């Protein structure tokens, strides 16, 4: 059969964010593909050099619409490392709580998208309904559903009282039972298994060669998790269970993410229970002394890398952001070969695309 190229994106029902792919197919077989990024490139790294450290928090929050908090958290830890200050333990715990909530909401969002792509609209509706609970918590504690503006250099901008802690715990318990149900569906629904088992497996060697991180790497049996390995506070005091799976296929990626949601729910409960008392912010000077720092943290999609250099002024001299999606995207053309056209959505969903993150 003749080879034809089908465009996927920049506008396509499959994609929620603009990304352009040309996929070569022959009949129902995919032969290969190529990518083009940059549709939402905003030059954030360049913009960051023109704004002060404080203004940059709000700029960086807008890198991503899903994992906005982990970006600012990593940035703030980087600035604080240059300043040589340590934030109060309570602030660390609140940051971690928001990170974990964000991970739950990101993974649920992702699960819904996968379900929608394979035609399981019911699961899509249910997961997004459950995800709404997480957004409610976020709104209740920080005032923002998507951009929380929770961080400031030297701590966080709000405190949690007993009442809010109790409310969060109640919602989390409810969410827990919902997630158990979802896990049950993923593990037992025959059509969902038929669509994901054995689809586009990634070997650990490919993971290593392409530098892929996060749930995708863990689903291929690569045991990396920056929460445990980079030990940013307060994760050095918390036990993080790292979920891995050896299959490396689309189903394993689903399994890892759903299990991680469960781990994050437990972690949230631990954080609320063990949250130390005290202040949530310390005073931080405006000017940052000269220096360079590299901070890695675990975003919902994997290792988030920040390089920050200060030249002693109130603006960063260089800020480099490497988001996990960029690494996963470079593997995408490799995955898009020798598969079925109907598997394209499954492969794309497995990457957990965040184009805004990748473009910056």
């Amino acid at each position, binding site marked *: 059969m003749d080879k034809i190229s089908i465009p996927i994106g920049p506008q396509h029902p499959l994609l929620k964010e603009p990304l352009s792919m040309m996929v070569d197919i022959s009949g129902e077989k995919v032969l290969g593909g190529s990518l083009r990024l940059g549709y939402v490139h905003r030059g954030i790294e360049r913009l960051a050099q023109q704004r002060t450290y404080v203004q940059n928090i709000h700029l960086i929050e807008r890198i991503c619409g899903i994992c906005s908090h982990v970006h600012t958290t990593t940035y703030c830890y980087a600035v604080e490392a240059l300043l040589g200050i340590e934030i109060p333990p309570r602030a660390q715990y609140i940051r971690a709580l928001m990170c974990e909530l964000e991970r739950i909401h990101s993974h649920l969002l992702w699960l819904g998208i996968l379900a929608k792509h394979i035609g399981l609209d019911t699961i899509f509706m249910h997961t997004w309904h459950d995800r709404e609970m997480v957004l409610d918590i976020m709104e209740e504690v920080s005032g923002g559903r998507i951009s929380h503006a929770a961080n400031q250099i030297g701590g966080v901008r709000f405190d949690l009282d007993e009442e809010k802690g109790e409310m969060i715990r109640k919602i989390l318990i409810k969410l827990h039972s919902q997630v158990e149900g979802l896990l049950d569906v993923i593990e037992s629904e025959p059509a969902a298994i038929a669509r994901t088992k054995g689809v586009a497996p990634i070997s650990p060697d490919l993971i290593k060669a392409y530098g892929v991180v996060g749930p995708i790497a863990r689903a291929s049996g690569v045991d990396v998790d920056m929460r445990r390995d980079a030990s940013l506070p307060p994760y050095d005091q918390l036990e993080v269970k790292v979920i891995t799976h050896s299959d490396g296929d689309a189903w394993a990626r689903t399994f890892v993410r759903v299990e991680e949601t469960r781990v994050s729910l437990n972690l949230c409960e631990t954080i609320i229970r063990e949250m130390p008392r005290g202040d949530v912010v310390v005073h931080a000077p405006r000017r940052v002394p000269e220096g*360079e720092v590299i901070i890695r943290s675990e975003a919902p999609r994997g*290792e988030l890398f920040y390089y920050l250099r200060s030249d002693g002024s109130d603006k960063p001299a260089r800020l480099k952001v490497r988001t996990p999606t960029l690494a996963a*995207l470079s593997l995408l053309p490799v995955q898009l070969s020798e598969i079925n056209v109907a598997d394209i959505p499954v492969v794309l969903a497995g990457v957990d695309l965040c184009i805004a993150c990748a473009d910056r």
Partner: protein
Amino acid sequence: MVTPIKLEDLCAEIKTNAGCQCEVYDGVHGDHTLSITPDQLKPVIDVIFKTFDYCHLSAITVQQRKNQPDEIEVFYNFWSGSGFSLLLRLPMKSAKLPSIISTIPGADFYEREAAEMFGIEFTGRDETPPLLLPDEWDQGPPFIGEKEKNG
């Protein structure tokens, strides 16, 4: 869990297998950094990837320091249990580096980004369309040149 590597082991491995001496640069907080020259890049990366069980390239960070305007700094940031970086200094006029995508195919996007944003030429790889900048972009690498005007 990946066992973190020790800086001494890394230096020793590079010395025996790639046959080059590398200086430790201690400016970066958080990562071990080794300073090497462009022609050492490929052998050193070969050594790094063959020696350790698990190691990935996190990023290629490029920057230009204000006090050294005719020099470009390139960091190759790796992670293998703990972070470590390779630092290369290139002359501004002829910023050329050997491409490493034959060893690390995942470096493709990072190299393209560095080429677009800082005008670094990566030798030994195919010409590619722009990755992040618009197709009709004609104002040169955005991080170079007009820096002072806006900053």
